[in-house]
């Protein structure tokens, strides 16, 4: 059995599957929410977490380096 056979048979079978759609109210809500963001780029709030993590790790590294320097000095 070739891959083309598998593709053709699966396509044949899948035509029998019932159509599924999101209900119209939810679709409108999702579209409205997403439409507001078209072309705006990701929300700045998405940057907060990585910035905080970077600050935390960075400050810990600085503290560790200072401690090492202090111990050596």
């Amino acid at each position, binding site marked *: *059995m070739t*891959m083309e056979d*598998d*593709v053709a*048979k*699966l*396509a*044949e*079978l*899948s035509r*029998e*599957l*019932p*159509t*599924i*759609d*999101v209900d119209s109210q*939810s*679709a409108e809500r*999702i*579209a409205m*929410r*997403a*439409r*507001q*963001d*078209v*072309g*705006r*780029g*990701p*929300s700045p709030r998405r940057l907060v977490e990585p910035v905080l993590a970077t600050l935390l790790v960075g400050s810990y590294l600085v503290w560790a380096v200072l401690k090492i320097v202090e111990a050596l000095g």
Partner: protein
Amino acid sequence: MEPDERAWVDGLRRGDAQAFDVVFAAYRRRVYGYLVRMTRRRDAAEDLLQEAFLRLAQHAKRLDADTRLGAWLFTVAHRLFVSWTRAQHVRAQLAGDLPRSEPPTSDRSPLEALADSQAQLALERAFGALAPAYREVALLVGVEGLTPTEVAGILGEKPDAIRQRLARARTQLAAALGDHAPASWRTP
């Protein structure tokens, strides 16, 4: 790439909300159908559908001019599904290693309730019984009409792996369907 799709991508790149509406209308059923059949839950599928189209909206101006929207959206939907699955596993472990899936509360899942014939019901159940990795390939190729090469790109897999999954999905579907399998499936 269809001429319409090129115009839609151009519109999205300009930040045109009407272009977004057209793309949403064109792809929402397909992406939602994929997500429902992968998560087996309508509420989760709705959440992931919203996230997929939010990402499209936010990424609109950075799309390449030759972006194939179907492949782009299914790539995002696949990644969202993978993240959702991981979150489900973590939640189950935190809850004391409970079973991954909720036990069925009735004979028919909401998805199966859509079936209006015994054959459709058997088919929906057969797809649902496939392992997610096989179901995903069967849906993307069989229902969505994507090529195995496109599916390999979406899933980040090698084409050979997709070919094997297709063959196994077909074999398992035939076994699960039994007498409900189309006549052409039963002939060698």
